[in-house]
């Protein structure tokens, strides 16, 4: 285990390893996304109350779930970078932030579109959407902070501190927004929980969640590889690799 982590910290080894992973992950991700989307759009039955508009759930919920998990991945990388000072962790954090921000934005946009046929309005200050919006701000803060620092090593450490503070705060934010919403909840727009979801609707949802996790991993790896090529453009191992290909 330790040797594996140690190897992950070495750019040449990681570049080769991630190359193999990406080769497999790219077709798997695209396949999962297409199958899941087709299943959710075409095969699954409509919701008896919301009709066909509920099919947005197959992208909205996975995007939201993975966006939140992505923040924890980013913060974990930040902690590794702060404690063990592994440069690869910096690269991971930097690669994960924009991906998480895009997924959060996707969850917000699809949520808004879903709101129109369901609630009759594009935007509702519902607990889940509000929490998503705050998560988007947290992500944008990390991205903006990184861009603002001139020294990129310092930038990575500053972002690590910020994302750790955010991680501690996220459960509190989610909980407080929940309470806030339940205090002010208007009776007319109650959202039916998905606890009663039928298995014919659940399987494509699980498939799409898996697909979005793969998508997250894939884009982060691709971002990291692009970053590595740039950072190590003068390093021996990369020069040799380029010569070979």
């Amino acid at each position, binding site marked *: 285990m330790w040797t594996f982590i140690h190897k992950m910290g070495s750019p040449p080894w990681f570049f080769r390893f991630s190359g193999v992973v990406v080769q497999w992950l790219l077709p798997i991700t695209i396949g999962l996304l297409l199958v899941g*989307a087709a299943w959710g759009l075409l095969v699954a039955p409509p919701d008896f109350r919301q009709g*066909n508009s509920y099919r947005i759930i197959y*992208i909205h919920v996975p995007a939201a779930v993975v966006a939140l998990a992505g923040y924890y991945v980013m913060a974990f990388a930040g902690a590794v970078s702060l404690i063990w000072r592994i440069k690869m962790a910096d690269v991971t954090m930097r690669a994960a932030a924009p991906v998480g921000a895009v997924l959060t934005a996707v969850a917000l946009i699809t949520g808004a579109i879903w709101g129109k046929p369901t609630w009759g309005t594009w935007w509702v200050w519902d607990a889940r959407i509000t929490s998503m919006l705050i998560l988007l701000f947290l992500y944008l803060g990390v991205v903006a902070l990184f861009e603002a620092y001139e020294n990129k090593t310092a930038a990575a450490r500053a972002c690590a501190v910020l994302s750790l503070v955010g991680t501690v705060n996220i459960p509190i934010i989610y909980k407080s927004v929940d309470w806030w919403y339940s205090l002010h909840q208007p009776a007319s727009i109650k959202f039916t929980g998905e606890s009663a979801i039928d298995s014919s609707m659940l399987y494509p949802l699980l498939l799409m969640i898996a697909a979005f996790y793969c998508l997250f991993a894939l884009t982060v790896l*691709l971002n990291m590889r692009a970053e590595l090529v740039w950072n190590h453009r003068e390093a021996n191992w990369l020069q040799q690799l380029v010569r070979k290909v």
Partner: protein
Amino acid sequence: MYFDSLSAVWHMDGHGFYVWLSYALTFLPVAIMLWLPIRRQRQHWQWIVAEQRRANSRPADAQSE
């Protein structure tokens, strides 16, 4: 397959616009998100290749002159 015809798939009992719009607005950014790093890496790779070629050809030029 739940729907009977292609137009039913497109229309989705009046919800088609919302469903297809949200899928489009998901897959477009996802595609861009996948494509950008691939393009960036390829670009940098080509710069390195070009630089190596230049470095290799320079001594050869000097000899031929």
